[in-house]
């Protein structure tokens, strides 16, 4: 029965493809910070044809009532659609520029469907972080029906930090799984050696193996290097390597703690994709009498099992706040935030581990604000599919810690599109761009709002309940 329904929707969509669909809502967030209210968005042939605050007519008008429209979200650092998710690694060698993760991307995978239902319409799907030069990443749509051509080989992933070294023994062994880097220093050594070898071959005019061509492309500026940099120390390393190796196009990604390097990122013009920013971190910081207890390892050791315990508490609290008329997280007072933190800290598992208490250190969840203030081009990324780790949750969290809401939305839409170089087609509600959009039941940044309609390239993939005739 469900299949039939899906088929019906599909047929309807196909029929409506060349016709004009109009989506009517109370408000449209264009993605560049501007807002249109009330809003009509006209879509035809997979593209947006017009955005207006006056009524538009079309073959089909979808009335979303008090809903608010936002451009489809773009997650610039994702492992959705991969059967083994972030564990998709080629570990036979440390340096594998020749592998391309896009071949494994399954748009029908449940992890993609979940993201689509959250309003995420575009991903940069990337390999795991076990190899030093981990291979190509690629921009892909979350909609299985998408016909957009993919530009292969546009991104090359390089991992800094300890991930490629984790679990490698420092003590010899000649087996297949005996890998070399077993320190932070050794990881950088691999990056430098690989690129310098290619540079020398280019200079000498000698033949370069096909496997190494992605490095050539990176050095010539034909592809962007995405540096996986979990904390500031990796960001600084990346910036140093970028200077040393003269790599033209770069992105730092996966940053859990980055604000200390904000000025340096700004100075070099390197954009940043933030990594996971979850509730548990927030709890850790607030739960200590207002002091910022920052986990020494960043978020790396906070596991999702803790989040499951924490999250319902927070959800319930936010619901209670909303019932009191406090609808916007930024309106919550310090005490209320503190209460939330206390609740989270009481959850088992949270609070263990090596911590440093340092009032000079910027808390993790305020870093989006700090980075924006420093003028770094940055975006949220690395959204998960369990509750509390959705891409949008990161923006909600940052808004709560003082990030401008309009900016928070653009850090889910236009900014990632700019960073990934796809802003010509994606990232904002503008005539001529792809019709990727999501309608929420209310303000998208309020935790109680939920997506009611998702459209990718003009196809409605999630519909308002009312319009389904249920």
């Amino acid at each position: 029965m469900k299949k039939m329904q899906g088929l019906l929707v599909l047929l309807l969509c196909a029929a409506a493809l060349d016709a004009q669909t109009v989506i009517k809502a109370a408000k449209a967030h264009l993605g560049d910070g501007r807002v249109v209210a009330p809003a009509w968005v006209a879509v035809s042939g997979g593209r947006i044809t017009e955005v207006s605050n006056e009524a538009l007519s079309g073959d089909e008008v979808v009335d979303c009532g008090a809903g608010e429209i936002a451009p489809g979200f773009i997650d610039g650092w994702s492992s959705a659609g991969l059967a083994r998710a972030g564990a998709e690694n080629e570990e036979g060698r440390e340096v594998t520029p020749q592998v391309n993760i896009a071949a494994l991307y399954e748009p029908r995978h449940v992890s993609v469907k979940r993201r689509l239902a959250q309003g995420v319409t575009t991903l940069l799907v990337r390999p795991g972080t076990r190899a030093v030069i981990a291979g190509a990443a690629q921009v892909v749509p979350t909609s299985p029906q998408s016909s957009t051509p993919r530009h292969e080989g546009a991104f090359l992933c390089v991992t800094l930090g300890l991930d490629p070294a984790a679990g490698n023994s420092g003590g010899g062994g000649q087996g297949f799984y005996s890998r070399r880097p077993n320190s932070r220093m050794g990881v950088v050594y691999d990056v430098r050696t690989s690129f310098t070898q290619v540079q020398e071959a280019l200079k000498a005019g000698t033949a370069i193996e096909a496997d190494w061509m992605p490095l050539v492309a990176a050095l010539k500026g034909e592809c962007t290097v995405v540096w996986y940099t979990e904390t500031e120390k990796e960001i600084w390393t990346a910036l140093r390597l970028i200077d040393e190796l003269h790599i033209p196009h770069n992105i730092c990604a996966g940053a859990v703690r980055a604000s200390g390097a904000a000025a340096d990122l700004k100075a070099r013009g390197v954009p940043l994709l933030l990594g996971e920013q979850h509730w548990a971190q927030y709890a850790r910081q607030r739960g200590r009498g207002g002091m910022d207890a920052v986990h020494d390892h960043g978020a790396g050791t906070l596991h999702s099992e803790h989040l499951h315990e924490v999250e319902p508490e927070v959800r319930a609290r936010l619901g209670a706040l909303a019932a009191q008329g406090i609808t916007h997280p930024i309106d919550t007072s310090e005490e209320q935030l503190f209460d939330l933190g206390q609740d989270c800290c009481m959850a088992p598992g949270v609070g263990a581990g090596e911590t440093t208490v340092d009032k000079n250190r910027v808390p993790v969840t305020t870093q989006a604000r700090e980075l924006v203030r420093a003028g770094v081009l940055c975006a949220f990324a690395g959204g998960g599919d369990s509750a509390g780790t959705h891409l949008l949750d990161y923006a909600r969290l940052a808004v709560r810690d003082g990030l401008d809401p309009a900016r928070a939305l653009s850090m889910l839409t236009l900014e990632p599109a700019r960073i990934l170089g796809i802003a010509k087609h994606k990232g904002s509600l503008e005539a001529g761009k792809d019709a990727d959009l999501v309608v929420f039941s209310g303000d998208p940044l309020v935790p109680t709002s939920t997506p009611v309609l998702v459209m990718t390239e003009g196809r409605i993939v999630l519909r308002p309940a009312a319009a389904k005739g249920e």
Partner: protein
Amino acid sequence: MMQRTLSLLLLVAAITPLCAQGGTIVIRAGTVITVSGENYSPGAVLIVDGRIAAVGKDVAEPDKALVINHPEGVVVPGFVDAGCGVGARRGLAESQRAMMPDLRLADALDPSDPAIKRQLAAGTSTWLVLPQDGNVLGGRAAVLRATATGELKVLKSDAGLAVCLRERSYDREREPTSLMGALALLERASAPAYDAAAAVDRGVLVGCHTDREVAVALRLGARAKGRAVLFTTADTCDSVDAAAKAFSGTVFARVLPELSDRLSAVPARHVAAGGVIAFSSAAPELPASALRLCALTAVRGGLAQDAALRALTLSAAELLGVADQVGSISSGKLGDVLVFSKHPADARAQLLRVVQGGVLVTPHGGVVVTPHGGVVVAPASKE
């Protein structure tokens, strides 16, 4: 009225040190030991913009300078720790292959290492970090320092090529599996390795803990044409004379009070044989204060107080190739000075003040130096 004036005065007094945060500071004390030149008693040091501008019996006092007076105190240069792991946690052991001359320690820095502030609190202004002992050729060491607030800085990223002849470099499941094998590897591969070392101006840094390892190191020391520094402990007591002649210097770690009289005399014997010595704290494995403890133990073993202070400061700076920046109180060098209650090579001396890069390390900077040489981070909201 009187009270208001007084509180105004107090306010001015409270603001003045903040104005001096830019790095203009005058330190007057009972004695200034410059290490590189004359000593002054009484003496004064002027630091402007983070560098030493003048030292003498007295110095001109610029407007808005922070003035520190210690009529009984002894001012000495900030200490130079010739070997520890501070500022590079979890990044140092790249030991899968024996010969890794191109590794760079500066690639593995960790500015969030809490041990950085502990170095400051113990009076260590500058320190060397060697790659860990897992390889025969372990890559390039780096000289690091911190700002008064604990920010990590690289003073020199190519501070020498680390060679390790200790058992840890050959007890792994790979070639070499013996000291003999390690030497063969070094002799076979040493031409390019020493070329790499020649590119960095301090040559080779050789780690040994036993006399037989030193015997092997002596062969290398000769090949490196006196451009090698020996990193060892007092256990290598039988090779004192040879090592003092063959190496440009010797760095001692773990010269601690529990050593026998015979072993604690080893650093003094090196100096008597014409060698240059420095000390290593081995922090964070040992506390940062182990650096001064090494000097104190060496003094117990017969080393002159001034020679011990030289080993803690200028000799170490020379061996690390940073004597143009740190190691003594002379014009143009970085403004790192310490105020002790007595000569720092006297075990009773207390560290009273730490000035790093012309900035007083204070509670306001987030760091409090406690009488025990420990460190506490300033609490966030307590009055």
